[in-house]
C-alpha cells in the first residue's frame, strides 16, 4: 500500500498547503497596504490610474457609454482592518477547490489508481516529468512544490474566472430608466485580474529563489555567480575582464530586481486584458453577444493555460540559471 505514489503525493500535498497559505497571507498584506491608501472606489493607486487612463478610454469607445472593468478589484467588505475584494473571494474559492480535490484524491490511495486519484497522479507526474526535463532531477526534488503548486493554482484560477457567473453576479447602480445594465461590484472576479495576487506570488518566488540560490552556491558563490568573471583569460586581460564583469553584475542585479515586477505585470496584464476583451465583445452587439464571445472564450482558455505555463517556466528557468553549476547536469541526462 505505501507505494511510490502515496509518498510523492503526501509530499506534494504538504507542499501545496503552505504555498496557498503563504500566498493568501501575503495577499492580505499587500492588499491592505495598497487598498488602505484609497478611501472608497476612487483610483488613487498610481499604477491603476495609469492603466485606467490608457485602457478604459479604448473600452469606453467600443462599449459606448458602458462603464468598463475597473483595473483594481472593488472591495466588497472589510474583515477588521483587512479589505476583502472580489478577486480575493475567488482566490479563496479556488484554493478551497484545489485543497478539497487533493484531499478527496488522496483519501484512500489504491495500488491501481482510478478516477480522481488517477487524474491527480497524471497531473503531478506530467508536471514532474516536464520540470525534470528543464531543471534536472536534484533541483526538481527541491523546488517541485513551488512550481507545481503555482502552475495548478494559476491554471485553476484562470479557468475558474471564465465560468459563467464570475463577473456577472453582483451589485450595481441602476441607470435612469431603472434597468440594471452594469454590475460595478461583482461578487467574483478573476483571481489573477488583481495585481496584489500576482505580485504576492512573484514575491514568494523571489524569496524562494534567494533561498535556493544561497543553498546551492553559498553566499560567496552566489556573489561570484553574479559578479564573477567568466572564461579563462590570463594576465592583464583577466584584470580588465574582472572590471567588465563587475559592471555586468550590476546590470544583472537590476534585471534580477525587475523580475518580480515583470512576472506580476505579465500575468495580471494578460488576465485583466482577457476579462476586458470578453466584456467589450459581449457589449459590442447586444443581440449577438453569446455568439460573438465564443471564439474569445476559447482564446481565453488558451491564454489561461499559456500564462500558467509561462509563469512556471520563467520561474523555473530563473532558478536554473542561478543554481546550475554546469557540472553533474550533463551526466544526469545520459
Amino acid at each position, binding site marked *: 500500500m505505501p507505494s511510490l505514489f502515496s509518498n510523492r503525493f503526501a509530499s506534494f500535498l504538504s507542499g501545496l498547503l503552505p504555498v496557498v497559505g503563504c500566498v493568501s497571507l501575503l495577499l492580505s498584506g499587500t492588499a491592505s497596504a495598497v487598498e488602505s491608501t484609497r478611501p472608497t472606489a476612487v483610483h488613487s493607486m498610481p*499604477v491603476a490610474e*495609469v*492603466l485606467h487612463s*490608457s*485602457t478604459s*478610454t479604448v473600452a469606453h469607445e467600443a462599449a459606448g457609454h458602458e462603464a468598463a472593468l475597473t483595473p483594481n478589484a472593488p472591495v466588497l467588505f472589510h474583515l477588521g482592518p483587512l479589505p476583502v475584494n472580489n478577486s480575493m473571494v475567488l482566490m479563496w474559492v479556488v484554493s478551497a477547490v484545489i485543497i478539497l480535490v487533493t484531499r478527496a484524491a488522496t483519501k484512500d490511495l489504491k495500488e491501481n489508481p482510478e478516477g480522481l486519484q488517477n487524474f491527480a497522479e497524471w497531473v503531478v507526474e506530467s508536471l514532474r516529468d516536464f520540470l525534470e*526535463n*528543464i531543471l534536472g532531477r536534484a533541483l526538481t526534488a527541491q523546488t517541485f512544490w513551488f512550481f507545481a503548486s503555482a502552475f495548478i493554482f494559476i491554471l485553476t484560477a484562470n479557468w475558474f474566472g471564465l465560468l459563467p457567473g464570475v463577473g456577472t453576479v453582483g451589485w450595481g447602480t441602476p441607470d435612469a430608466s431603472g434597468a440594471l445594465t452594469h454590475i460595478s461590484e461583482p461578487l467574483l472576479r478573476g483571481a489573477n485580474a488583481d495585481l496584489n495576487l500576482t505580485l504576492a506570488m512573484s514575491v514568494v518566488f523571489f524569496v524562494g529563489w534567494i533561498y535556493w540560490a544561497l543553498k546551492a552556491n553559498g553566499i560567496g558563490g552566489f556573489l561570484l555567480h553574479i559578479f564573477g568573471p567568466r572564461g579563462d583569460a590570463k594576465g592583464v586581460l583577466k584584470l580588465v575582464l574582472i572590471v567588465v564583469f563587475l559592471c555586468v553584475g550590476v546590470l544583472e542585479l537590476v534585471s534580477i530586481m525587475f523580475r518580480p515586477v*515583470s512576472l506580476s*505585470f*505579465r500575468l495580471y*496584464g*494578460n488576465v485583466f486584458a482577457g476579462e476586458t476583451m470578453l466584456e467589450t465583445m459581449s457589449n459590442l452587439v447586444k443581440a449577438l453577444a453569446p455568439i460573438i464571445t465564443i471564439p474569445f472564450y476559447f482564446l481565453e482558455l488558451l491564454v489561461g493555460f*499559456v500564462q500558467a*505555463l*509561462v509563469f512556471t*517556466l*520563467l520561474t523555473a*528557468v530563473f532558478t536554473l540559471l542561478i543554481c546550475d553549476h554546469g557540472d553533474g547536469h550533463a551526466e544526469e541526462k545520459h
Partner: protein
Amino acid sequence: MSIVTNLAEITGSLHIGFAALGSALAVGIIGMKASEAVGRNPGAATPILVQAILSSALAEGIVFFAIFLVK
C-alpha cells in the same frame, strides 16, 4: 508643413501602440521560426515549444511595461 501639422494632431497612447507593434512582430517572428524548427526536427517539438513560449513571454512583456509603467 501640412505633414508636420497633421503629425502634431496625433494624440493618445502612442507608446502602447508602438510597443504593441514591436511585440506583435516579435511574437510573429518567434512563431515562424519555431514552426520552421519543428518542421525540420519534429522530434524536438517539446524543447522548441519551451524556448518559443519563453521568448514570446519576454517579448510580450514589453507591452505591459508600456501600459503600466510609462506615464
